[in-house]
């Protein structure tokens, strides 16, 4: 049995976050798996001036942007899908407080893949020829932008393509469904770009909805998409993606998704939200009480619950 990397959420944020860092999360789309609880903890610990690398915006970036602790962000998509515009992020962008550099949903994981491989750049056959290439929020005076997606010549055909810069974020907080105590992780639902992100980031903190016995990992090694050898720490936190969904575990909390986004539309609403849903809990139990036990039961009654069946026997009831 390998060494346990299980630590508390507060300890993980203390060790693996700092002001001004390049922080990555949000690698599983705006409604799905994201380590939202880690973002709440960053706020609790007063982190600021973050450079956020989020493949897609999620309620985590929406909250951090609304709270004014993000100065720069790079995203492929910056709303909340059918839940609408991300009001907190939108407010920070429109006011000029946050510089949002736009890419697309393929560009972001390709840049992470390039970072994972330590490539100097990634050839770009998308995002070229559009204003994503020509306009840069990080270099607003350059038009067309020179350093965002510069044109390069394909040495084999002579054709003009683009070059994406690669991403190697300081820390990635990655939400997974199941992990063992050393960080071997199984992701139910789409991976989105969590695999690329886990290899690109300098340090990886796993935020798991449930901890499984290592017997589970040895039974399904081909389903382990993030191996322990690249993981710094594991945090066990049920409903870590709330109010978003975790396939096999719980559905999106539709009421809270809307409530939260409405609150983040204003400075006062954001302050109230932080008072009521970021600062009150002391531990997992009081966090779950805050959401409401009836609500948790309802969210857990998901049409995807059967996805968890093969793994249930391995889930540890008490955290080791």
């Amino acid at each position: 049995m390998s060494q346990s990397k299980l630590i508390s959420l507060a300890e993980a944020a203390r060790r693996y976050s700092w002001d001004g860092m390049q922080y990555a999360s949000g690698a599983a789309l705006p409604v799905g798996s994201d380590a939202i609880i880690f973002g709440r903890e960053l706020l609790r610990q007063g982190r600021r001036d973050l450079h956020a690398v989020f493949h897609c915006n999620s309620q985590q970036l929406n909250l951090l942007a609304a709270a004014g602790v993000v100065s720069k962000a790079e995203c492929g998509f910056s709303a909340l899908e059918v839940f609408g515009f991300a009001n907190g992020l939108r407010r920070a962008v429109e006011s000029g407080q946050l510089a949002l550099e736009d890419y697309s949903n393929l560009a972001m994981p390709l840049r992470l893949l390039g970072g994972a491989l330590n490539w100097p750049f990634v050839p770009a056959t998308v995002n070229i020829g559009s204003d994503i290439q020509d306009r840069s929020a990080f270099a607003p005076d350059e038009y067309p932008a020179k350093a965002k997606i510069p044109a390069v010549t394909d040495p084999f055909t002579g054709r003009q393509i683009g070059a994406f810069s690669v991403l190697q974020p300081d820390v990635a907080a990655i939400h997974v469904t199941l992990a063992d105590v050393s960080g071997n992780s199984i992701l139910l639902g789409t991976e989105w770009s969590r695999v690329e992100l886990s290899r690109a980031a300098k340090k990886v903190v796993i935020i798991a909805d449930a901890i499984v016995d290592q017997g589970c990992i040895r039974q399904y090694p081909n389903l382990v998409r993030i191996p322990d050898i690249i993981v710094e720490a594991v945090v066990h936190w049920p409903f870590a993606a709330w109010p978003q969904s975790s396939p096999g575990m719980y559905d999106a909390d539709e009421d809270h998704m809307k409530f939260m986004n409405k609150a983040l539309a204003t400075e006062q609403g954001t302050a109230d939200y932080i008072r009521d849903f970021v600062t009150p809990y002391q531990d997992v139990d009081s966090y779950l009480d805050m959401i409401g036990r009836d609500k948790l039961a309802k969210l857990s009654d998901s049409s995807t619950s059967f996805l968890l069946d093969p793994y249930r026997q391995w889930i540890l009831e008490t955290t080791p």
Partner: protein
Amino acid sequence: MSDFTRQEMMAIATGREIRDGELAIFGVGLSMLAGYFAQENHAPNLRTMTEGGVYGATPVGGLPWGIECNRISSNATCFSSAVDALGFLVASGRCDVGVIGAAQVDKFGNVNTTGIWDGEIGPTFRPPKTRLPGAGGANDIACGAKRFIIMVTHEPKRFAEKVTYISSPGYLEGGDARARHGFVGSGPSAIITTLGILRPEAGTNEFILDGWFPFSCIDEIKANTGWALKVSPTAQVIPEPTAAELANLRKVDQTGALRKQ
């Protein structure tokens, strides 16, 4: 005439563009309903994917909240990834058809989903007055899918001579401008709106009116288009939904997202 909404007509007209057996990618929201309607109605062998990497699934419980929502994750045949869906299967040139939405579209089918500015952006990039969702996977579909369909509510503010910001490329400045960038995809094949259908004119690739829905007319469409819209000599009224089409659409749209006007 049976009872249906303009949004339902738009979704059905979009679905009619999708052929059985094709490899198809759908964005979030109404375009997803149009795609799964096609599969339910006339394209049972459609090979479907969302850009999130959910393959072979159909929505359960209504319009999914996202392309990775549990509503689209309870009967999938594969959970994959963004690089797989948008890269291996779209940027590679393998995907036959994509459906995307638009906040603003212009006469060459360029799409803006990034922001609304007061006037031109100018030489210095500045925050938009209203920030929109960004490109998402639509840029990748617009560059890589063999063809794509733009679904958009027909209003003057959305139909501009020239979009303020190109989030996803259509035919750029028209003609063969796309060739300059060597995109593997050949561009938008149709703009399907709440009033009718526009298609690119051969040669110029300017979008012209190809047909109007039974409840609309050429004059209404021209009045709601922000450029001097040309009308194809073969333009005609588009058949209203059949009873079977409506039933199949509503089977997919369980929560009635398209019935809210």
